[in-house]
């Protein structure tokens, strides 16, 4: 792959849990953007829903002071992803351009080892060929593959948008076009809890938040996966969760 930009980017995300309301707009936007199939109520009840982004909801407190905690959980695009070395056919590889984890549908033979090895349970599997009857197929995003049965899939940080932006920036000679790109979930979030940006850019606000926020933490940091997503939580208390 020829490198058309001057330097590779490292795309990252900051999710502010103090702002997340659990509205699921990000989930819906992701499903629309990435041609995610609808598996049906029974399948979802059994745990086979195809969610690239999901909202983990935990309850805390005792009645009458019960409150929910929402955590949007998606593929953390780990710097050292445990899903990558275990795929026998190189269907899960690390992108040198975008520094994210790529899922190559054509190479996937469906051993599902990557899904077992992901500590975030970010990967989902196409158990059947799911039907998209006309005229629903009109909503399909032409930039994104429609997956057949038997392949794994997961959040890609809307890599089609990233590649589009990079090509646009190169062909029009305007690098700033690349800085404006954002993912579907970040775009849809009503409270701007999800922020997306380039972590190699010193000027981007996301980099400051990612690296130095007092409320910042990474999920399952101790596993050494180096995720590209930092969560912010604390309500102002140093060190994160209250």
């Amino acid at each position, binding site marked *: 792959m020829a490198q058309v930009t001057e330097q590779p980017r490292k795309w990252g995300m900051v999710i502010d849990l103090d702002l997340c309301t659990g509205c699921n707009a990000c989930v819906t936007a992701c499903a629309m953007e990435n041609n995610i199939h609808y598996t049906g109520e029974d399948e979802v009840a059994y745990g086979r829903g195809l969610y690239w982004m999901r909202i983990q909801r935990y309850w805390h407190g005792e009645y009458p002071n019960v409150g929910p905690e929402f955590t949007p959980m998606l593929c953390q695009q*780990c*710097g*050292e*992803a*445990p*899903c*990558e*070395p275990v*795929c026998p056919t*190189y269907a*899960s*590889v*690390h*992108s*040198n351009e975008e520094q994210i*984890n790529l899922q190559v549908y054509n190479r996937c033979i469906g051993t599902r080892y990557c899904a077992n090895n992901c500590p975030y349970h970010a990967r989902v599997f196409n158990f059947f060929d799911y039907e998209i009857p006309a005229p629903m197929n009109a909503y399909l995003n032409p930039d994104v593959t429609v997956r057949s049965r038997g392949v794994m899939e997961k959040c890609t940080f809307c890599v089609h948008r990233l590649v589009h932006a990079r090509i646009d920036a190169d062909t029009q000679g305007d690098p700033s076009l690349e800085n404006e790109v954002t993912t579907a979930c970040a775009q849809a979030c009503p409270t701007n809890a999800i922020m997306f940006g380039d972590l190699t850019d010193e000027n981007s606000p996301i980099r400051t938040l990612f690296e130095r926020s007092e409320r910042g933490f990474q999920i399952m940091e101790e596993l*050494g996966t180096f995720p590209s997503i930092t969560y912010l939580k604390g309500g102002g208390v140093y060190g994160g969760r209250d």
Partner: protein
Amino acid sequence: MITEPIHLALFEEDQINEAAEAISILRSQGVPDRNISVISGVPLSEHILGRPMSWSRVGLIGLAGAVAGFLAALAITYLPVLIYPLNVGRMPVFPIPTTLVVVFELTMLGLLISTLLGVFVETITPSYGPHGYDPRIAHGKIGILFTCPPEVDCESYDQLVALGAELTHNLQERKLWP
């Protein structure tokens, strides 16, 4: 082609001593060891019968196969990654521990398959010594095949019979494979 007639002296399965005696009788009569061939239904070591050790290159062939397997393993681990490098997280491009696993497996595979091929090739290629066979060998009998060179006078026949052998003269050479 052996034009001399092949003789077979058959001993019962528990007559190992008599068989060893018979071989020394033949040797004393002037029949060289290369004109004697012992066939049996159980492995009888050459020491037991007083025969020279036979040779086999199966060990060397196995070793060669192991080396071939080792090289194949290194090739398949390193060459594709050199040509088409793919980055997978938390692992260097040339990791040694994972290479060791692949190297071990393919080395053993090379060793074992080449041993089989060695046995196969050595078995079907022509062998020295008198060719001959009697189906009773599979019933445990010990058979001594020998040819008498013309300059040797084989008076030993009745000595062999005295030991308890069953003599067959002019054994037909049968093709056993394929």
